[in-house]
């Protein structure tokens, strides 16, 4: 291994000399305490190292040792329900060793080494078979919710010369050998390692034609996200970013959820951990933590590790995608990672781009977001999996023109723009219907319309009503609402119903927190039916006041709280009541 010496220390950046033979992105151990760092550049025999731990107390001349390895994740059973830092050190185990504060220089295995897992081998696979990367060797039931598939690691091709039978194994026990030719045998274990900066291979990419159902009406109906898609959630402070992201990880219909807290609040992370243990998966009734992985690098932990926490999250996501699962990864917040890049870049004295961010900000963001996708997985049996990425962005002063937001928009398909003004009015989720968009609407419409024929027409109409409301409100602000004709006033009423009775959703209400697709579409149908019928009545000469006084409106407002299984019958009754009450108004008006 390469052994050099520290030449300069400047915050998280260390320059070492006598480092000939090292490679960029190689992991190195810095100083006598062997702090973990990564080489981010070489110049002659000098290596520029970003150190993932606090560098106070390091001295010029202390040793730096190369590891020969790239920064890699450990992938295998034992990964679910755990909290890792950006270097994949298990934080809950660290607590047992060094107490409640994060200490530096602690080396811990990412996956538990002594725990035995019940391995069931894939009976279709026999000794002598040719194996390729991704072939499923067997399974481990890691939690009640997740069947962990043990796959041949990427880069291993050959003939299976030995495979273990069903039984209990630790992640380091050999469960088989592959003859890779040239007399070389590779040992297979329950776990393997994979460099976090390198995308994991797959067979082919698939078009994102299936929606990721999130159970949030404004997203599923208005601004859908595809499985394997990419979304960004920019929003100023107090606009409810974190609550929305946590809500998405709680309710999205996926098999695996990964939550990366990157440069954010410690108390929030603690709250997320606790609520994931408490909350139950709506389908199985098991704790959500059983299908979740947490990566926590809070704002006061070393900045350089923000980058690794994001890439670690993506790598774990790809690993479960390769098993054929639908995975959602959220990163809160990518702006903090970008700021870390800016800090390191400044210390490297690189030429700055916009607002001091490095010129490669955009390409680095692309490296991250482009790892999302729906794919045909490598190996047999044939399977498809998806990794959906949702990244929060924290624009300074809630100004979306800043570089991180703008660069992110180049790579994402759904923009979920949060509006502080909506949040101040207590409209939650505070998603702006005027700024947000989804590029997936057309491709996903096919999926929706197979189930709900009018999905797209209703969505478009609702957005049009909201857009028209925005124009009318400008007039109202100038001359007051009385100046509008009744038809416009009715439209304002409809817009208000869409906003308050549909778009607003209480993330903490036991029923309203999750809204299944049938209910989402049904609610929209009821609201639009009311609007259409009311317009008919207005045209027939019924005074607006009478329409406004209809008691059915209050019932529409309470649809949110109706339980899922009761909703179809409630919807039927509501539609009936709307038709009847409007007809009687028209009939009554004609009689008078």
């Amino acid at each position, binding site marked *: 291994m390469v052994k050099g010496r520290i030449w300069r220390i*400047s915050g998280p950046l260390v320059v070492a000399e006598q480092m000939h033979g090292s490679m960029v992105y190689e992991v190195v151990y810095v100083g006598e305490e062997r702090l973990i760092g990564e080489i981010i550049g070489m110049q002659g025999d000098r290596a520029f190292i970003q150190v993932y731990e606090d560098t*106070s107390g390091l001295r010029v001349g202390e040793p730096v040792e190369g590891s020969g390895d790239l920064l890699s994740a450990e992938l295998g059973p034992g990964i679910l329900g755990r909290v890792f830092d950006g270097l994949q050190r298990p934080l*809950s185990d660290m607590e047992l060793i060094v107490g409640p504060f994060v200490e530096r220089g602690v080396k811990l295995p990412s996956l538990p080494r002594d725990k035995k897992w019940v391995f069931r081998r894939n009976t279709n696979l026999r000794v002598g078979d040719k194996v390729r990367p991704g072939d499923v060797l067997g399974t481990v039931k890691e939690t009640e919710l997740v069947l962990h598939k043990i796959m041949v690691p990427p880069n291993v091709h050959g003939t299976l010369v030995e495979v273990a039978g069903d039984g209990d194994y630790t992640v380091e026990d050999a469960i088989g050998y592959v003859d890779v030719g040239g007399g070389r045998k590779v040992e297979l274990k329950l776990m393997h390692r994979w460099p976090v900066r390198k995308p994991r291979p797959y067979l082919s990419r698939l078009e994102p034609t299936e929606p990721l159902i999130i159970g949030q009406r404004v997203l599923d109906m208005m601004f859908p996200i595809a499985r394997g898609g990419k979304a960004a959630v920019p929003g*100023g402070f107090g606009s409810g970013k974190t609550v929305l992201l946590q809500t998405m990880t709680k309710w999205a219909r996926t098999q695996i959820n990964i939550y990366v*807290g990157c440069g954010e*609040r410690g108390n929030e992370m603690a709250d997320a951990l606790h609520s994931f243990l408490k909350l139950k998966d709506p389908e199985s009734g098991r704790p959500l933590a059983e299908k979740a992985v947490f990566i926590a690098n809070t704002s006061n932990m070393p900045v350089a590790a923000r980058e690794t926490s994001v890439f670690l999250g993506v790598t774990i996501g790809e690993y479960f995608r390769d098993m054929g699962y639908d995975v959602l990864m959220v990163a809160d917040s990518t702006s903090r990672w970008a700021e870390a890049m800016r800090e390191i870049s400044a210390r490297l004295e690189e030429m700055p781009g916009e607002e001091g961010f490095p010129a490669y900000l955009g390409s680095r963001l692309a490296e991250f977001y482009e790892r999302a996708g729906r794919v045909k997985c490598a190996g047999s049996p044939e399977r498809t999996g998806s990794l959906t990425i949702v990244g929060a962005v924290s624009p300074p002063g809630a100004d979306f023109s800043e570089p991180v937001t703008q660069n992110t928009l180049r790579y994402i398909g759904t923009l979920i723009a949060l509006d502080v003004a909506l949040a101040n009015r207590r409209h939650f989720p505070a998603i702006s219907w005027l700024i947000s968009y989804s590029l997936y609407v057309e491709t996903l419409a096919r999926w929706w319309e197979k189930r709900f024929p009018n999905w797209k027409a209703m969505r478009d109409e609702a957005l049009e009503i909201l857009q028209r409301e925005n124009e009318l409100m400008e007039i109202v602000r*100038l*001359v007051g609402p009385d100046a509008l004709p009744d038809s416009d006033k009715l439209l304002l009423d409809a817009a208000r119903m869409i906003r308050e009775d549909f778009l607003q959703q209480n993330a903490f209400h036991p029923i309203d927190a999750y809204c299944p697709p049938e209910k989402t579409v049904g609610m929209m149908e009821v609201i639009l039916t009311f609007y259409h019928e009311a317009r008919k009545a207005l045209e027939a000469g019924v005074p607006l006041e009478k329409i406004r006084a209809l008691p059915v409106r209050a019932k529409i407002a309470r649809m949110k709280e109706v339980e899922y299984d009761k909703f179809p019958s409630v919807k039927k009754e509501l539609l009936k009541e709307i038709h009847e009450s409007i007809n009687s108004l028209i009939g009554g008006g004609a009689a008078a």
Partner: protein
Amino acid sequence: MSLSVKEVRKALSAKGSLLLVEAIPGIRYGEVVEVTLGTGETRLGQVIDVSRDVAVIQVFGGVSEVNTKAARVRFRGETLRIPVSLDMLGRIFDGLARPIDGGPPILPEDWADINGAPINPASREPPSEFIETGISAIDGLFSIVRGQKLPIFSGAGLPHNRIAAQIVRQARVRGKGEKFAVVFAAIGVTYEEAYFFMESLRRTGNIENIVAFINTAASPVIERIAIPRVALTTAEFLAWKYGMHVLVVMTDMTNYCEALRELSAAREEIPGRRGYPGYMYTDLATIYERAGRIRGKDGSVTQMPILTMPDDDITHPIPDLTGYITEGQIVLSRDLHRKGIYPPVDVLLSLSRLMKDGVGPGKTREDHYQVFMQLIAAYTEGQYLRELSAIVGTESLSERDKKYLAFADLFERRFINQGEYERRTIEQTLDIGWELLATLPEEELKLISVENIKKYHPKYRRKSKGE
């Protein structure tokens, strides 16, 4: 320890608060140095960059009067530590924890690194214990819980210091006789402000529960970088070693950020927004994130930083970055202040993110959250109607609308407004809220459950009392 002390006898250059010296082997990044001036005076400094050739030292107290030829720089071989002790309670210190109240020096129980260590997120206990400040606007609408960091966003000339002093005087956790302490850090404030705080703390009579650190506007700028960390180190010692519940009040964080900018400019760093360094978010986070609770430990650190928004602009980098880190904010309104409302809390811009977990049955009262939601909703409606009536006049408003207009006025005058020495229990606060809600038609109280209306609405209460 004396073996590790190294000395350099010449400085290469001195500028702003930075001193460049020729590097000698063994200098540690971040270690403390003693700079002895030509005049014999000694100042502390810290190594902020070191290579084989040069060490850059940030000098607390600045480099005025430094004679580069005569200066001596002694490297102490350790990072900046302060003495901590239970005896610090009741005492006043400067920004580097040296007593300035004329009392004896502190006998240290321990020496603590002022940078602390991050709390392991997996070891944190989510904060959930309600702190009663006796101020309706805060307790009723933006409740603080132990372990939270909730700043006050103020403006020049607004009464943030009076509010902070009132909170320090009145804050308590209900029904418990636990150990409570206040750590107060004055960062670059004027002498009058520092004096006001010390006086009002003294008048509460429990000065023995207070540790004060004072850096006035005339003290060296560079000490402002250290003072919040020194205060928090002391708070952590009291909380984690002695199980005390510590409230840390820091005023004014704007001065801290200005010092950070000055320093960054001296280091010739690439400036970020408005000249503040790009790492200001991270730097502030290393201060604010030191609030919290730890599973299995009795104590807590709660923070109430105060900052003045330059030109009342909430999008200015200082309040903006603070708001991204803290768990909510209490924003003061110049309009309300002009109307003579104290405390002038801007209800629509303020927020407590952790309130949800700190209120309700067993903590405050079962109707608390619903009353809070309903009061905000009604006040928002009233505010909207105020704007509308300014254009179209009140005549065109309906009866219902007029009730909301009247509600908004009452809400400001009866609920928000209170005396500087008035302590309201949470029950009193909620009952005032009910009194105001009772001026609205009962069917408008959509956010409150029928059971709570029956139980707490004055109309039904009066009846049940009459029986």
